[in-house]
């Protein structure tokens, strides 16, 4: 049984291997990029906008609202990263309705890459917000005894992000292929529908967790301004 699309090799030359994960990832990237480019070519500001622009505006405002609810002050700064994460994961999870498609998120290498990009983005935004010193000081909060635990937490949550997404999507595929050998008629479709729900929820959770981590880093590393009340 295949556990991940890494094992489907499409083209090989020496140690240079192109597997199904790479192919489907690039197809999704190209589809998303061309769709975004095509829609944003003719943006209008009037009352009568095209229907695709309406869809895009709904998606963007929805993501901005979600980021704002978590507690990040100006979401426009972060939507480039967080919105892309969400859209990529949700598209790659939802495309399982197409035949012969294998979601790239069911390969541990894709999810590890996404988790590592979150791992890099958290200190990036933290330093951007509070400076290098402010970010490094956030490891010493609430006291310096917590320093090793903060570092362990940083590493283990990256591992958890990667394994959670991989496990959920991979388990969906495995359950469907096990059911195909037992009851090949109705139940695989039902489990596939459940897989669509799980895919959307996992994409939401991946991006909301990334948002929470970035929000924690930025609020911790921001310099606490002392408010001195004016004397009369």
């Amino acid at each position, binding site marked *: *049984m295949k*556990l991940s699309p890494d094992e489907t090799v499409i083209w090989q030359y020496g140690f240079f291997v192109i597997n199904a994960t790479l192919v489907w990832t690039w197809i999704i990237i190209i589809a998303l990029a061309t769709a975004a480019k095509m829609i944003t070519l003719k943006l209008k500001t009037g009352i009568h906008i095209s229907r695709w622009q309406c869809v895009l505006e709904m998606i963007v405002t929805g993501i901005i609202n979600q980021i704002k*609810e978590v507690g990040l002050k100006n979401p426009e700064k972060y939507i480039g990263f967080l919105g892309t994460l969400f859209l990529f994961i949700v598209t790659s999870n939802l495309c399982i309705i197409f035949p012969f498609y294998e979601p790239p998120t069911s390969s541990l290498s894709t999810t590890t890459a996404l988790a590592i990009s979150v791992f890099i983005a958290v200190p990036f935004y933290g330093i951007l917000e509070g400076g290098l010193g402010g970010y490094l000081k956030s490891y010493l909060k609430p006291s310096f005894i917590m320093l090793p635990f903060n570092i362990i937490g940083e590493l283990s949550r990256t591992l*958890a992000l990667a*394994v*959670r997404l*991989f*496990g*959920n999507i*991979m*388990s969906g595929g*495995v359950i469907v292929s096990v059911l195909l050998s037992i009851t090949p008629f109705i139940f695989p479709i039902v489990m596939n529908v459940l897989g669509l729900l799980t895919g959307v*929820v*996992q994409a*939401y*959770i991946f991006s*909301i*967790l990334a948002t*929470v981590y970035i929000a924690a880093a930025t609020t911790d590393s921001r310099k606490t301004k002392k408010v001195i009340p004016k004397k009369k």
Partner: protein
Amino acid sequence: MDNKTIISIVSIITAGLTITIGVIGPALGQGKAIANALTSIAQQPDAEQTITRTLFVGLAMLESLAIYCFVISMILIFANPFTK
């Protein structure tokens, strides 16, 4: 019985035990979380959005524990490094 057979038998038994024991804790935890969330939604229906979002994130955290067990049992059965 050669070595490979013994390793396979142990792997299969361990895979079953892993998923059985490992699912108990997350199941109890998720049940408790959902029960508490329902109680608080009934008490404060205004805060439903915040409660639901936090509940989903928490449930995903709890579920990942069970998923770890599942991944380990899948590795033991389908991609066991010791039988290769």
